[in-house]
């Protein structure tokens, strides 16, 4: 446990000691903030239209959260899909490339401790990222009454989806000695999982169902609408565990394969 936390802390710290994390956060926030702003302006426009038409015959209203926070978080996830491979590629592949890996591998640590520690460090980083993105929706409370439940669900969803990205990135990083290759693999896998539902409707009913279930996007969208379901939670936990177990197996296999 102590070793796990020590690795996690170093991993987390090393991200902030290099320009990597800072650059990533800067890019993420600049774009997310721009998108959030655009969404708020868009919302204002819709609201004005809505009021000028006199409420469209009285039915329904335009939800503030639905129109501002949800699109911002949706876009943030896509941004993270692009940025996470760059963050996770270093985790193991770079240690191997820079020959620091033997220091860890020759220490009295089980493979799961090393993998788990690195993943925990990454989760800490994601926690900071998601918490900081959460500041933007907070500003809405000055102007209206956003749906707190939906915001929290959305942020939780973003954390889970990025955590799953991270686990897949970690798995890819364990599979190669080249960080760039790890980034390509991660990006390919994540994008496939993101868009796989596109085929869902057109494919046969059984295959379509499976494709829809496998899709990251579908599960994430549930969170954005404020729904936290155990099926979605299970999906993300399963995906993350898969990544970690894969990375562990790779480590074990590497000792044997050389």
């Amino acid at each position, binding site marked *: 446990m102590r070793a796990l936390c020590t690795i996690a802390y170093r991993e987390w710290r090393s991200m902030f000691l290099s320009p990597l994390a800072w650059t990533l956060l800067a890019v993420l926030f600049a774009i997310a903030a721009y998108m959030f702003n655009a969404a708020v302006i868009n919302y204002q426009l819709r609201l004005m239209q809505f009021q000028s038409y006199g409420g469209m015959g009285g039915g329904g209203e335009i939800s503030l959260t639905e129109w501002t926070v949800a699109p911002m978080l949706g876009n943030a996830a896509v941004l993270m899909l692009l940025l996470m491979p760059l963050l996770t590629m270093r985790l193991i592949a770079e240690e191997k490339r*820079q020959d*620091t890996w033997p220091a860890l591998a*020759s220490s*009295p640590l089980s493979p799961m401790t090393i993998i788990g520690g690195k993943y925990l460090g990454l989760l800490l980083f994601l926690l900071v990222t998601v918490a900081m993105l959460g500041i933007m929706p907070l500003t809405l409370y000055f102007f209206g009454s956003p749906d707190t439940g939906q915001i929290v669900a959305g942020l939780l969803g973003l954390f889970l989806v990025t955590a799953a990205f991270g686990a897949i990135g970690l798995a890819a990083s364990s599979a190669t000695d080249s960080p760039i290759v790890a980034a390509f693999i991660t990006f390919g896998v994540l994008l496939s999982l993101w868009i796989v539902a596109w085929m869902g409707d057109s494919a046969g009913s059984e295959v379509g169902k499976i494709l829809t279930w496998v899709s990251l996007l579908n599960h994430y969208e549930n969170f954005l609408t404020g729904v936290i379901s155990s099926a979605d939670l299970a999906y993300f936990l399963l995906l993350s565990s898969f990544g970690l177990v894969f990375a562990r197996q790779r480590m074990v296999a590497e000792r*044997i394969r050389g």
Partner: protein
Amino acid sequence: MTEIMIEVSDLSRNFGSICALDRINLQVKRGEVMGFLGPNGAGKTTAMRILAGLLAPTSGSVQVAGLDVLEQGVAARAKIGLLPETPPLYGEMTVREYLSYLAALRRVPRTQVRTAVERAMSRCGLESVSERLLRNLSKGYRQRAGIAQAIVHSPEVVILDEPTVGLDPIQIREIRGLIRELGGEHSVLLSTHILPEVRMTCNRVALISQGRIVADDTLEGLEKRAQSAGLLFIRLNNSPEVSTLAALPGVAHIESGEGGGWWITPHPQIDPTPAILRNAVEKGWDLRELSPASHSLEDIFVQLTTQEADPEAHAAGEMKP
């Protein structure tokens, strides 16, 4: 003092169809500095990676401090400190941070981390650079930091893979001094292809060539063996017929050498020296010179590592202490 710290039995390792190690046997006792000597590509690094638990053997077993590195890997690795060929340094950390980090990972109790780090730094002469980033250190200091991380958790066994490569002569001398010092407390397995290094640091030498141990002996033993098998050079003022000399007991072969001298190849079991001396005195050959052709460690090295083609010679090269 005779406790065996590293016990390698019938260790083999294949990479696909390539056999990197072929049934290696090796023992290192407590407090001993064992030189692991061999040409590049002989299998030194593979053997060391297996010993340190980075690589699993194809067959055979390795025990470190009584623990099997395969079966009880985690516990065994706590007893091992490894310096790989390239020191595993995190450039963005300071020397102190780095050593503290690895001490924590290697089960140094929380309260003793500080002392352990201080001790490792002072042993490796790193105090003056303790707050500097590893990436800014010179090659010599990086190497020392690499050794410091291998000993920070006071392991029973220290494995050093070519620790002096790329250092300047002064640094080499310092590192060698450090290795000798380590020997008292830890068991050290030191891989190198630099022969004088072995002479200066090691109690015992294992010679490895093409994945096999071709010699395992003390340095003196090795030199003695090479000498006893070596040629004798004699020079006589009143030299008799060649046939007379060739007929002396212990002379297997004779040919003429420079300055009217003779090169004598001795019989493997009989030393010709007494017979030569006795006859020289009795028959007035007037002996001017009698010297064993001195074999340097280098000769032994070349001799033992280049005789693989001949299976008989290989068998003869196989020695047990």
